């Protein structure tokens, strides 16, 4: 009986949170084009998010490219299909691995950062102070951050994909005597619009999800300083889970339009 009650309560809590998150997203769309646009703060956030994540995304992308090529190589050799390596790595990185890995890294890096920052601003009454100063804190803090993540993630994905392909090309160059030019020519020959467009559009949604969850968790953080840690932690977990849901929906929709 107690177990059933606990389960019901948890389910209720889950649906309440989903509803609140949806309302938070709706509020974002309502406020995003209303003046003042807080352009300076938006630029500052874009710079911070892009600049702070670029090395992490680059290093991870490079290693992913290296590892993927190294691990696929023996299998492809077995089937005498090693010349397909650039096609295989290029398509898998551009379509799926690049956007998802970059988004997951940014969920850890950016969503937790936003959650902790807004959470600490909430518990130290900085958000209230902003409101009293005649500023709409939702617009100044939330709208700018969600917009910044939405704009910056596709850029980081393109950067991460490029570095990953360089990593892969390096392995092919060292192990298979394939020149960088030939490698990239083969990759670009293999890639189609159907690979690039859904991946790029998907990245915008990933960025939106990361910003939305980070801001939601931080903006409504409770329970004092302990709440800041909870906000940062749950922001990463929820954003990471939601990324896979968004990815599934994106692949499903792309499949309808592009017949993947």
């Amino acid at each position, binding site marked *: 009986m107690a177990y059933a009650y606990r389960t019901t309560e948890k389910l209720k809590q889950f649906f309440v949170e989903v509803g609140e998150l949806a309302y938070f997203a709706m509020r974002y769309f309502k406020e995003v084009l209303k003046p003042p646009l807080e352009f300076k703060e938006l630029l500052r956030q874009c710079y911070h998010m892009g600049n702070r994540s670029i090395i992490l995304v680059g290093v991870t992308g490079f290693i992913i490219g290296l590892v993927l090529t190294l691990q696929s190589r023996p299998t492809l050799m077995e089937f005498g299909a090693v010349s397909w390596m650039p096609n295989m790595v290029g398509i898998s990185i551009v379509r799926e691995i690049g956007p998802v890995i970059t988004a997951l890294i940014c969920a850890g890096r950016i969503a937790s950062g936003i959650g902790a*920052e807004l959470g*600490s*601003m909430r518990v*130290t*009454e*900085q958000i*209230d*102070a*902003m*409101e*009293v*100063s*005649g*500023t*709409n804190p939702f617009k100044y803090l939330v709208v700018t951050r969600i917009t910044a993540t939405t704009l910056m993630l596709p850029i980081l994905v393109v950067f991460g994909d490029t570095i990953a392909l360089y990593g892969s090309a390096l392995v092919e160059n060292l192990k298979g005597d394939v020149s960088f030019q030939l490698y990239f020519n083969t990759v670009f020959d293999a890639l189609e619009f159907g690979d690039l467009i859904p991946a790029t559009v998907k990245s915008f949604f990933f960025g939106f999800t990361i910003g939305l969850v980070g801001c939601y968790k931080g903006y409504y953080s409770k329970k004092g300083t302990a709440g800041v840690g909870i906000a940062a932690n749950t922001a990463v977990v929820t954003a990471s889970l939601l990324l896979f849901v968004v990815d599934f929906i994106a692949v499903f929709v792309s499949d309808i339009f592009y017949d993947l």
Partner: protein
Amino acid sequence: MMDMKGQYQMVKQDSLRGTGEVVIEIRDLRKSFGDNHVLNGFSMTLYKGENLVVMGKSGSGKSVMIKCLVGLMLADSGFLAVMGKEIKTLDRKTLDALRSDIGFLFQGSALYDSMTVRENLEFPLRRHKEKLGEIKDTLPLVQEALENVGLAHTMDLMPSELSGGMKRRVALARTLILKPKIILYDEPTSGLDPITSKEIIQLMRNIQKMYGTSSLIITHDVDCARVISERMVLLVDGVNYAEGTYEELSKSTDPKVEAFFKK
């Protein structure tokens, strides 16, 4: 003197009511959080130019009351008016304009962590262009506000580089920069050592003399109340239980009032 609710009330002295012009009026304010009824019909009036202290135990709803006053929280019921404008009837723009005339010193100073002291002070200046017009150079205003609190040298420091007392002073400077007509102090001396507390209290008195502001001070610090108050309201069980000067209230024999002044 007992009022209709059986609550203890001191005789109000008209001489303590500043110029007699009402700047804040609260009537029958009620606010609950679930089953926790924090404010159960609180009423008070702040007159122009006076220092009114509202004292109450921790969790008695003092901070909730001033947050309702500036629209940070919505009251369940009751009448709240600042300078003749009823808060719940105001749209966002009018409320923001009204807020430029209300300074709010937060309990934990609430300085923006990611900004320098100068940027903290410039923030409200840039947000209230209607009141101040387009300001090309904010530096003289920032300097003046910081000099008034004795911290002109901290302009380029980050809040994390300041001590608790310095943070409170900078927060006070940020409150003053818009030259408000009313200042709301939420526990201005909490978390400070006795010497720094005295300095902050002295600063509050100087500010009132210099700017002629009306002040509503929320505190549970009896020493602070003694030094700064012209009139006091005791908040007990969500209502204004007693009202009068410090001298009057401190001599009271009512057990609930006595409890505040026992050493």
